[in-house]
């Protein structure tokens, strides 16, 4: 008896060990290739396979929704997941591991940017095929990406700088409305603003400008919060920024020129998948550059000990205000994307509910970390969608999960981890021999 249980334990340990070795040997390139195979497989045979398994159509979010709605279909949903995602992903990743390691090493001989762009291209292809399956997926994807940008920008303030800001929905609203007014006035025939001033086809090239305008307006709003609240440390920022959020909301509700409480529609749908993807990647790149520079690290110094930062020549006041405006800028850009993805904005969207959502994403994912923001935003958005069939219980499960994270990992799932693109794309093991 002793011996058998002992052997079982060793077996289990070696199993885990095997999986660990397996994971550690596959480079990112291999995983992307595996994922690409999986989504391509789903794109071509997903629907027929789902029919064979007794489902009316392919499960949209990894089978969760189907499992919760019709428990009878759990086995088929699991089988579908295994056949479409798990097997191709792990098989391709495993089989291609050594070749991909060599390829990743080869790519690193060129400037880093080449390697990064190839990875991003593959990643985009995965997202593209995955979301081509249905409009629902395409929407989930776009809004999740926008949530990533918003979460990361809030992380700059609440994580990197260690202040507690509540005004992000306000900044997002400013960005959304500013960008919308810009595009609607210039490029759309609208009841509020009349006919378009410039031809439609020109507009797409103006969209980056619209986003930047949105970001800048949000930054100007942020200045109004920053100047009074960064004179001292403490809870001032939390209170002033909360007030700011409500002021922005009621301001928009009472401004008939932007549609008042009815909201503003007719935005051209320029925030399509590639535009959102590129903007979000650009945002992550710039924010990550900033927080890894000494100027950005100064935020951490200010957070951990402001007096010491001052004594070490760091201009603390300028550092805080710059970071705050910078974060507001990206929140504004996220707002602009959101408005053009939904093609309608409404002041009620940017209230306390949105605030709770973003804060949950930041603290769930992890403070002071780009990975954390990505994980937090994707995790909370996807969980929200997956648990939708549970209706009311969704609002019990997600907060419960948050509480658990706070108990076991008080700073979030992946906190205080540097995002280094080079480490991400490099091969996981030295190639065995030269080709």
């Amino acid at each position: 008896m002793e011996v058998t249980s002992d052997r079982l334990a060793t077996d289990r340990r070696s199993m885990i060990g095997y999986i660990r070795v397996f994971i550690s040997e596959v480079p990112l390139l291999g995983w992307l290739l595996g994922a690409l195979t999986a989504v391509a497989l789903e794109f071509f045979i997903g629907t027929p396979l789902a029919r064979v398994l007794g489902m009316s159509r392919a499960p949209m979010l990894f089978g969760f929704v189907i499992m919760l709605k019709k428990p009878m279909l759990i086995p088929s949903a699991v089988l579908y997941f295994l056949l479409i995602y798990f097997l191709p992903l792990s098989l391709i990743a495993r089989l291609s591991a050594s070749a991909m390691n060599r390829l990743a090493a080869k790519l690193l001989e060129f400037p880093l940017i080449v390697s990064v762009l190839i990875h991003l291209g593959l990643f985009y292809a995965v997202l593209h095929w995955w979301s081509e399956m249905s409009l629902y997926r395409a929407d989930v994807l776009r809004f999740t990406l926008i949530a990533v940008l918003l979460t990361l920008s809030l992380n700059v303030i609440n994580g990197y700088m260690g202040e507690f800001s509540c005004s992000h929905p306000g900044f997002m609203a400013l960005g959304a409305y500013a960008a919308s007014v810009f595009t609607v006035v210039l490029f759309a025939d609208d009841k509020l603003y009349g006919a378009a001033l410039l031809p439609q086809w020109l507009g797409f090239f103006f969209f980056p400008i619209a986003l930047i305008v949105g970001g800048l307006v949000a930054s100007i709003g942020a200045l109004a919060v920053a100047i009074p609240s960064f004179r001292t440390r403490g809870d001032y920022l939390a209170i002033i920024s909360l007030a700011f959020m409500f002021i922005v909301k009621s301001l928009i509700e009472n401004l008939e020129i932007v549609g008042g409480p009815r909201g503003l529609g007719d935005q051209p749908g320029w925030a399509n998948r590639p535009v959102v993807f590129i903007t979000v990647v650009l945002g992550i790149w710039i924010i990550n550059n900033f927080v890894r520079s000494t100027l950005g690290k100064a935020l951490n110094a200010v957070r951990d000990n402001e007096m010491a930062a001052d004594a070490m020549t760091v201009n603390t006041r300028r550092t805080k205000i710059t970071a705050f405006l910078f974060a507001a800028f990206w929140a504004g850009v996220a707002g602009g994307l959101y408005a053009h993805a939904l093609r309608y904005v409404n002041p009620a969207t940017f209230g306390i509910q949105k605030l709770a959502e973003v804060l949950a994403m930041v603290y769930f994912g992890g403070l002071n970390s780009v990975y954390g923001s990505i994980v937090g935003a994707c995790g909370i958005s996807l969980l929200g969608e997956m648990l939708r069939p549970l209706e009311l219980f969704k609002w019990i499960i997600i907060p419960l999960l948050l509480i658990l994270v706070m108990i076991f990992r008080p700073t979030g799932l992946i906190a205080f981890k540097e995002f280094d693109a080079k480490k991400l794309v490099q091969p996981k093991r030295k190639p065995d021999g030269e080709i």
Partner: protein
Amino acid sequence: MALLQIDAMTHYFGGLRAVYNYELEIEPGQIRGLIGPNGAGKTTIFNLITGIYRPTEGKIFLEGKELNGLSPHEIASLGIGRTFQNMLLWRHMTVLEHVKMARYSKLTYGLTGAFFGTARRHREEAESEAKAHHLLKMMGVDKFADQIVLNLPYGAQRRVEMARALAMDPKVLFLDEPTAGMNPEELVQMMEIIRQIHGELKLAIFLIEHRMKVVMELCERIQTLVFGEVIAEGTPEDIQNNSKVIDAYLGKEAVE
């Protein structure tokens, strides 16, 4: 004019007179000491000079430039580096990041460099990293460079703090009880380090200390502060034999 000169500095906390009529002149390359019982106002003097408090009266000059009214980071970048009595380190940052941070005012790449990672940024960051490694080696803590600073032993943390203060290329280095909480062995090492940086970098050093051994061996001139007033100033021998100093430290026997 001396490198650092302070004229008749007085400071009140509300109605409490913390520092009264304090005068100081530090010449380049000098090591000065400031001693005194607990609560005499030694750290307050440091905080007044480095701009954390603003003196109620009196003027402070560094190389003839008036420091009154400047903010702490401006005073620091003019050339006053300091360490703190209770080691104000940044708990989530690595040792290397600590030392690089003190090069903040030397960086010229600005926000463009920070956002877009320009060539100039990479060059300047590499330079400050090289400088930081050099200082860490000098302090003998280079092997901890990538560690979070709180994981280091106490003595090493003190050295990191000193390396950080040196990274800003100060003209005067203020050390606030550099040997606090150290055992005799660490104390001797720390004194050796202070001598070494004084020798190599030709810095003026202004030091607060409780341990007589340290001040007596290192300093050229010593001031004794009691209740915010300097009661004695002179060479270590003068101070050791000064009856007022002995009274202040040991108390006077009541003779009625």
